[in-house]
């Protein structure tokens, strides 16, 4: 079972939920921090890193001596990453997607590819939790190759918990895609609702079962509750605003450690997720 925790809006409590859930379960857990731009789960799941793998992507390089300046590479590039100025090829690496089309079309085989480091995967154990995180190199633009590399680590024998980046574009889609269940964490404000609706639309488009956790449910208004009710989206848990939780979070202390009642709450939420997922699978088989 793969559960992805995502949100739309940032700072609603994804990492709080994903790490607390991981720490509450009795089943073997594998945790993947797929928020590779800003990975934070390691702050809560103290892990001794045992394995490190760098992630590389090919980077095109032009051999000037072979290049005839025909411009075919610039024509084929869909990302405007190649310009030919006065017969000389210029590559803008920030725009390159490492697709390889330029070297494919070069009639003189003047473009070769070299590995370029995009980030690092680090793995280890936090107690019984198998932990992996990806960290995008500062200055690199594309998080998805790292998320893909992380998801290759998925061990289906375990309960896999994925912490996603916020938003609704490529990194979030990459993290959520092919999950068995998605938890969307939100807050009851117009910001939270606006971004929740966008995130729900993404998850619906991917045809995945979804549930919502409302964090700080007692601030703001009741529009998130109404939206979930109208759209038949189950609310898995409501977490109150509690300055103590904010302080624990700020120190990197998991709430399940200091406020033990949350262990049971997350276990109950997990049972509900299992039930909803079963129901969803049965429905999928029938149709």
């Amino acid at each position, binding site marked *: 079972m793969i559960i992805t925790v995502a949100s739309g809006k940032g700072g609603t409590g994804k990492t709080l939920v994903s790490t607390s859930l991981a720490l509450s379960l009795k089943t073997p857990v594998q945790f993947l921090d797929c928020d590779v731009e*800003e990975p934070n789960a390691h702050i809560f799941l103290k892990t001794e890193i045992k394995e490190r793998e760098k992630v590389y992507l090919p980077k095109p390089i032009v051999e000037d001596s072979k290049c005839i300046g025909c411009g075919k590479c610039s024509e084929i590039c869909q990302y405007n990453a190649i310009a030919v100025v006065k017969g000389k090829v210029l590559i803008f690496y920030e725009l390159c997607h490492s697709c390889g*089309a330029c070297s494919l079309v070069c009639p003189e085989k003047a473009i070769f590819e070299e590995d370029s480091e995009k980030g690092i995967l680090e793995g280890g154990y936090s107690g019984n939790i198998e932990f992996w995180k990806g960290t995008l190199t500062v200055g690199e633009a594309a998080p998805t190759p790292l998320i*893909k590399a992380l998801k290759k680590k998925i061990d289906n024998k375990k309960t896999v918990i994925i912490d996603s980046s916020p938003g609704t574009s490529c990194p979030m889609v990459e993290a959520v895609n092919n999950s068995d269940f998605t938890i969307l964490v939100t807050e009851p404000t117009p910001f939270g609702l*606006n971004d929740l609706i966008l995130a729900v639309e*993404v998850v619906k488009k991917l045809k995945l079962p979804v549930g919502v956790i409302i964090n700080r449910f007692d601030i703001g208004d009741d529009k998130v509750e109404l939206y979930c009710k109208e759209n038949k989206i189950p609310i898995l848990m409501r977490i109150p605003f509690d300055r103590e939780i904010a302080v624990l979070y*700020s120190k990197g202390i998991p709430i399940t450690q200091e406020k033990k009642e949350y262990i049971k709450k997350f276990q109950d939420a997990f049972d509900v997720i299992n039930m909803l997922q079963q129901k969803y699978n049965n429905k999928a088989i029938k149709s």
Partner: protein
Amino acid sequence: MKQILIISGKGGTGKTVVTASFAVLAKNKVMVDADVDAANLYLLLDPEIKSTNAYIGSKSAFIDEEKCIGCGKCEQICRFDAISPVRDKTPKVSDSCLEQPISNGVYYIDKFACEGCGACRVVCPKDAVTLNEEETGKWFVSDTKYGPFVHAKLGIAQENSGKLVSVIREKAKVLAIEKNADYIIIDGPPGIGCPVIASLNGIDMAIVVTEPSLSGIHDMQRVIGVAQHFGVDTKVIINKYDINLENTNAIKEICKDNKVEVLGQLPFSDKVPQAIVKGVPIIEFCNDQIAQDIINVWEQIK
């Protein structure tokens, strides 16, 4: 004309709350929301949309199943794992991912994975692949009582948000030159990836709104790293500073070490969610300490 960008690394630290207050305080400016995949600033600025524009963000490959002979060359060349033979179709791949109905012996393209590079079209021996331009979002020019506002909405599960950020920033620049504006004020996206990099391009001052949590500190350091990597003058605002004074001091130390000025610290305030619910910038909602502190920050940077 000065371009000011508000970013954070970590989401939910208060970027939009600060930006909306600057919209009230700055006199002659153009506002931009560059958080195009989860845009919120419009909820506080109450825009009246003047023009809606299509954003053609990317291309998507399409395989003509009549022409496809199932040779698999496209699958081999694709670096985005976007092409698979139909026989591999598992229930996990939802029908919405299919560019075409299922039949045997052909390949299909997962449109969420496809990045529209066209390498498959190059290798296809039967000319079965076409690249179609896709409208992947919309962008808007609006009037608000605070002045012009350029914002966008990326389509559901679409990519290339960085390019959309560049498009709306270009439009904002044109507007700013036309009306001889003193500032362009940009609400940035969280993270450090492509939309953030597109937001940083040509910025005069980046303001990082952070919070005194270990996550906030970690993410602030990374985003300062990116801003400095691109040579942008960077400053910091510590929001909710009183949640953890020890961490607030740690932030000040880190900023000192990195030669980053701390513009101010804002207290935790339950008025913030109330102002958001009301849909107004915090400094128009109350006269509390937080409002005073934001005004003080603006006085320093204007």
